[in-house]
């Protein structure tokens, strides 16, 4: 019984981590209509910048905040220099995909050259502190993730529903042509989308990497898990990302404890495929319309 409870808690904790990993992806896709394959590298960048700042005597908190904002700007740069150009050229919807892939290679190589393959640690004093509630254990970082994530979601929700820009973003995700006709400055909104999306990716990196280590290749897992979650939850839906993440986390956790631990990831992928077959748009997904 205790095992089941702990397994479920683990699953939810992992799930929130996965949701975090996917929120940047889903935002950029939902509004910008681009799957940002460099998402994992922004995740890594967030961690690296935070590490540099912490090494230079910034606190974990301040270092993280600055890092997130800086990576946000990187996102804007990507949108302005690359994605927007491809949009103008009227290239197929898939050129941005390959462009972000190229960025993945470029960024990853840069990390290797600048930071070397040696592992770095983004430390904060709470990361490994065990927190015991009724014999269920989670780590201090898990608690931080829970709190910060919920806060961010609330903030994002407020932003999307109550502010001028947020409503504009929703409008564009639903009907681009109509939004243009209504006088929404679509270029600025795209920039904003990438800013927020990149920030979320970096936030994920900063919150999750204290649980292990940072090297140039951690982005790959972030991208893969992120993609799985957006499939389960539905591309373009933040609520879907949360649900999707929790489902994925629970599946993996339960499968590895009660079935075959070595095949943990396989069960995760099989669950993704199952969802794709039964509910192709994801649990709460938006439809993919042409345009």
């Amino acid at each position, binding site marked *: 019984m205790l095992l089941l409870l702990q397994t479920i808690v683990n699953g939810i904790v992992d799930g929130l981590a996965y949701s975090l990993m996917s929120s940047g992806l889903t935002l950029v896709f939902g509004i910008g209509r681009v799957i940002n394959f460099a998402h994992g590298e922004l995740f890594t960048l967030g961690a690296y910048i935070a590490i540099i700042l912490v090494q230079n005597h910034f606190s974990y908190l301040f270092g993280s905040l600055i890092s997130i904002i800086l990576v946000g700007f990187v996102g804007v740069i990507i949108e302005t220099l690359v994605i927007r150009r491809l949009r103008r050229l009227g290239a197929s919807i898939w050129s941005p995909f390959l462009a972000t892939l190229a960025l993945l290679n470029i960024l990853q190589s840069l990390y290797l050259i600048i930071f070397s393959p040696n592992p770095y640690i983004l430390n904060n004093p709470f990361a490994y502190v065990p927190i015991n509630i009724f014999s269920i254990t989670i780590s201090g970082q898990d608690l931080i993730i829970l709190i910060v994530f919920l806060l961010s979601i609330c903030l994002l929700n407020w932003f999307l529903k109550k502010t001028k820009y947020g409503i504009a973003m929703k409008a564009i995700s639903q009907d681009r042509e109509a939004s243009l006709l209504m006088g929404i400055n679509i270029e600025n909104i795209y920039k904003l989308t990438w800013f927020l999306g990149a920030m979320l990716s970096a936030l994920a990196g900063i919150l999750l990497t204290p649980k292990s280590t940072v090297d140039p290749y951690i982005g790959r897992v972030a991208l893969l898990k992120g993609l799985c979650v957006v499939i389960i939850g539905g591309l373009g839906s933040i609520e879907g990302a949360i649900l999707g993440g929790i489902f994925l986390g629970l599946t993996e956790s339960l499968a590895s404890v009660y079935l075959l*631990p070595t095949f943990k990831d396989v069960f995760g992928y099989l669950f993704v495929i199952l969802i794709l077959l039964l509910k192709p748009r994801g649990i709460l997904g938006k439809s993919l319309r042409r345009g």
Partner: protein
Amino acid sequence: MRRFLLVLLLNLMVFLVLPSFAENIIKIGVIAPLTGSQAIIGTNVVNGIKSAVKRINDAGGINGSIVKLVIYDDRNIPDEGVAAARRLIYEDKVKVIIGSIGSSVTLAIQQLTMRENIFLVTPVSMSPALTQRGDKYFFRVTATAEMRQRGFVSFVVENLKPKTIAYLAVNDDLGRSEVEAAEKFYAELKGPTTIFKAFFDPSESNFISYLTKIKVLNPDVLFIVADSVKAATIVKQAKTLGIKTTILSSADAATAQFLQLAGDAAEGIYFPLDWSPDFTDKYSREFLNAYKEDYGTIPDTKFAVQGWEAMWIVAEAIKKAGGIDNPDKLRTAFLNLTWIGPRGTWKFKENGDPIGISTFVVIVKNGKFERVLTK
């Protein structure tokens, strides 16, 4: 576009026209992952090799010939390793290759070197398959999993007397071969029964679900196989979960890097150890001084020493054989040589595996490796 074609053409011409090497240079090919997921290990090994070559050349080379390294990156991808090997063999015309790290890459390269009678020496690869293929010109300058596990397993059975054991290992040739060897010896000694066994993907960084199950099963000992970084993450997460089981680790994580990353979660963990930068014998000091001189610091993994020793042994064999032109003479030289390095005395068997590198058991006490005195 035109300039690109010109560069392409020039490169092709270089391939076709490359002259063979001068008389008094011995070219040794090196294939290792310098980028990609195994880059830490690859760069460390290559650093060790380069340091060795510098000292060899400073002392006059091998029988008067200077050693020149031709180093290629394989990114831990078998195809790239083979491409690099082909370049080394057909373009650079080397006869001896040191490489690689991941067994998949080494095995792929071996298919080619076997066909072309090229000498291949691996400083790291663990897969037993490498010495089971009847390759006369292959030698392994590193302890196999069986060599590492034999003494360690005896120690565990005699001193810790566990009744149950759990395995958590990385799913690659290292993890698979170590677990296989351990299970074999435990069975022979009628040791603990296996109550849990899981292999995780090399990119995994979250072990909580495995550890949760292990905690509930409560084995007497837990054997983990992973590199320093992953092992440190595992033991830290285990500590957070409150796991009190005695932990055994494979030799690869017995590094200063592990101690630094794991902090006090490392206390009480047993390792088989073949070498550590703390050693003070003259061979180790020679290596450490050389490394410090070349790179400004002592190595934080032990893979640098593996590169160092592999290069020195190859040089010894070439010296004894009088050159690299006759692979059979080189093989004979290998089989007859005895060389002492930081890890001990090296001799080789017919199949290419080394004979009995001594390992002893250490435990982490107060953040340092301490040798365990056995009865």
